[in-house]
């Protein structure tokens, strides 16, 4: 006979500690009663309008700076300080080319059964609390390196109003996406190995993160998300397998910079953080 004790395993359970986010600040955005500090790695910190400890000007001044931020269990910003610039392996990024929008044709996977095989061979040895952009980059690059399969990336970009409403932890999420031939139709299937048991549709994927189940609005311009009127919950953008973070999407639009190859520095950084 077995009794279940509703208790905690004190010896091995970790206490609920504040997160430490080490990343570059992507932007600072005002929404209702909070400022949202968006980090390049996708995390979000909340700063109340009433909070006198962090001057908004100071936070804006940190945009683009690499910082170490301590977050409370409710993702509120507790402290922040600038640290040294990006690690060496991320500094020299040679893979940008200023060119016309290049043609990018993902490999068409011949069947859903074949897509399932790809899913099952994705690298399962990711670290706890790894970043989605790094996991996705390693999965995409390994599939290209080992099997010459060109995948896409799909970025879900959550609006400030949605983040604020549900106290969401991330401002974006990304996963590899594959073009799959399903009975003659080319379908897009997301392979988010951490959260799904098999390839899923884009809507199935976003439904996990958009609790309202509203469809994310597809866009090809990052600025549409960045300056959105806060009427959507989320936007969707496609990237190539070379795109790493939303900065790459922004660079496409604002600077005409398209990635045409994997940056080995980024690959190393992705492995280092996530695997």
């Amino acid at each position: 006979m077995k009794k279940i004790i509703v208790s905690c395993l004190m010896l091995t359970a970790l206490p609920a500690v504040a997160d430490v986010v080490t990343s570059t600040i992507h932007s600072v955005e005002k929404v209702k009663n909070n400022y949202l500090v968006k980090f390049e790695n996708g995390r979000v910190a909340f700063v109340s309008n009433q909070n006198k400890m962090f001057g908004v000007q100071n936070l804006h001044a940190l945009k683009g700076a690499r910082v170490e931020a301590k977050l409370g269990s409710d993702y509120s910003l507790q402290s922040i300080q600038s640290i040294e610039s990006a690690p060496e392996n991320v500094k020299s990024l040679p893979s940008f080319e200023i060119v016309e929008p290049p043609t990018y044709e993902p490999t068409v996977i011949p069947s859903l059964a074949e897509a399932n095989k790809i899913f099952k061979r994705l690298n399962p040895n990711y670290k706890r609390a790894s970043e989605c952009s790094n996991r996705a980059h390693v999965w995409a690059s390994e599939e290209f390196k080992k099997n010459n399969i060109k995948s896409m990336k799909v970025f879900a970009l959550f609006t400030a109003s949605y983040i604020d409403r549900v106290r969401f932890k991330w401002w974006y999420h990304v996963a590899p996406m594959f073009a799959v031939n399903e009975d003659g139709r080319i379908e897009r299937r997301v392979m988010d190995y951490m959260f799904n048991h098999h390839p899923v549709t884009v809507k199935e994927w976003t439904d996990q993160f958009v609790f309202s189940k509203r469809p994310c609005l597809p866009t090809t311009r990052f600025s549409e998300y960045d300056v959105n009127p806060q009427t959507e919950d989320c936007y969707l953008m496609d990237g190539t397998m070379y795109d790493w973070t939303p900065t790459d999407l922004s660079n496409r639009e604002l600077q005409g910079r398209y990635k045409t190859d994997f940056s080995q520095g980024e690959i190393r950084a992705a492995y280092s953080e996530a695997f």
Partner: protein
Amino acid sequence: MKKINKLIPAACLLALASCGGSGSSASGGGGTRPADDPREEMQAAEGTYKAILRPYNFTVAGWIPNGMTDIKITGHMIEVKSWLDDAANVVHMQNIHLGTECPTIANDSNGDGFVDFNESVQVSKQILLHLDADIESQSEISVYPKGNFTYFQTASLSSLIPLNLEGKVIIVTGAAANRGLPATVSQINNQTREFSIPIACGVIERMPEIANN
């Protein structure tokens, strides 16, 4: 060897514990019948096994829970490491079940939008091994980890029922106490619905051997 295919109500042992009174002793909790007999299981082969714990019923959890379980069988020993990240700072019951598939929303037989424990065990089957604070004894009392947890336990296989882990599923339960689940969600014995509801599941896969590892 203890029978582990029955759950009886919780006792209140620690100050942090929630207490449950007497309830049914149906297998797998809540009146489901065992689909298979764990005593028929084959002995597990030596090697390493991994289950990626992926969310289901994810809207009930404080955050989208996810985790991983690594199991190593060497000689007569079993070593289990697992972690789970979830914002809800509640007790998470984690067990290996006899079934070989994780439940999906298609298993929500009463259509309330949740795949509760009773609905889950239709697919995941009865509990084979409690991943609690003392795997070896599989004693009458289970103490499970809480919140974002890291778990590590070892046991002698000779003290356990025969195990054939490959393909089996691990189910983790436990949502925030204030989640307010509807009465249609089943309870494990007299535990709360929030305690009882599954939040993550993974299928145990055997990992390829790596030389010199």
